[in-house]
């Protein structure tokens, strides 16, 4: 059950991101809702759910929109994995915690993109990239984080999500 819910959330997010977000674009910047979702999974479910969700969500994005298969998948998987490490160590009910991790993760994604471009031989200044893309995206994503996290939290409180995976 749970796995289908997560898959549905990821697919729905993809549809919303590709259809609705162009209209809430501000100066060419959109909130990164997939990242908020991955961090929500990380804080509410921990590994391996968040890492797998990041991997799958990222792959979907790669296949649909990206040029390099694995580019987004790698980023979101790493974010899901590392944020998932703090699962159970922080109080997941507070809204400030996902906001904090979203901020950090956006910077991480920006740095990753910068490194990628750098090694691909694209001449780009980190300063410019930070001011023009990373910072606005971080602000915008941080603004929508409480909304998405609030509903994800509610979803996880729902009874059908309480069944855990029993592999052994």
């Amino acid at each position, binding site marked *: 059950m749970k796995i289908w819910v997560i898959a549905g959330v990821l697919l729905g997010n993809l549809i919303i991101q590709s259809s609705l977000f162009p*209209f809430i674009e501000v100066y060419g910047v959109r909130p990164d809702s997939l990242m908020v979702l991955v961090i929500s999974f990380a804080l509410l479910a921990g590994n*391996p759910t968040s890492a797998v969700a990041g991997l799958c969500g990222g792959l979907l994005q790669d296949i649909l929109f990206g040029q*390099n298969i*694995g*580019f987004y998948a*790698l980023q979101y998987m790493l974010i899901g994995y590392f944020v998932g490490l703090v699962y159970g160590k922080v109080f997941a009910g507070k809204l400030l915690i996902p906001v904090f991790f979203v901020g950090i993760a956006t910077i991480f994604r920006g740095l990753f993109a910068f490194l990628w471009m750098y090694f691909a031989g694209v001449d780009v200044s980190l300063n410019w990239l930070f001011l023009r893309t990373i910072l606005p995206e971080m602000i915008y994503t941080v603004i929508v984080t409480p909304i998405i996290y609030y509903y994800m939290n509610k979803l996880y409180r729902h009874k059908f999500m309480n069944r855990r995976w029993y592999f052994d």
Partner: protein
Amino acid sequence: MVLLQFLRRHSLAIIVAVSLFLLALAIFTSQPRGSMSFLEGLVGEVISPVQKAIYRAASFIHGSIAEIKERRNLRENYEQLKERVEQLEKELLRMNELEKQNQRLKKLLDFAVEREELVVTGARVTGKDPGNWFNVFTIDKGKNQGIAVNMAVVTERGLVGRIIEVGPNWAKVRSIVDAQSSISGIVERTRDNGIVKGNNAFGAEDGTCSMVYLPLDSEVSEGDKVITSGLGDFLPKGIYIGEVIKVVRYKKDLYKTAVIKPGVDFQRLEEVLIVKARSDE
């Protein structure tokens, strides 16, 4: 299960391995390739209908939102332009008004310059009795501006009337077409004296005057010009009153009567001149 335990124990190693794989994949797929890989082709095959549907929905939403935006813009523009047109129309009206006023005042000024022996002051008509004709009307100058009763009121086209009442900053003028007005006139060609009375009695307003008490042997005829005689003590001599349009003699009267059409248009009066004095007196 052994598999899960293995996963848990070596999660970092798995992550590193998958990361490296993804990185390699990303690098590999970033190379320019002529054709899609088999995997990409397969995924594309599965996903492209979904993509198409998403795209269609997105472009529909985009289109409708853009249309609404555009419509709102159009509306805004329309309102703005409408406002602007209204403003400009008002402005134009004002300009036309000023232009006309300018012309009228210029004519008045010409008169004042022509008759330089007369000390005149301009005044604006501020009100009139109801009806088409300016029988009695008020002007915006009074005692404070040196206006006194019986002063002559003129325009460049001739005599208008005289002041009958004076307030601090206003005065009442009785025009020569009013039935209660009577002034002393003279026919310019024949030098016949007579009294010019207004014909605008209640119920019979035609805007003419009658010159009565003309001698029976007077040769006055149509087209003769009538001017003020200067008899009496208020009207200066030689101000044009109007033109004779008809000469009649009523049966029982011992004098002739001439109907005069005043030079002033008594249906349209806006600015007048008031003769305050003669400079040579």
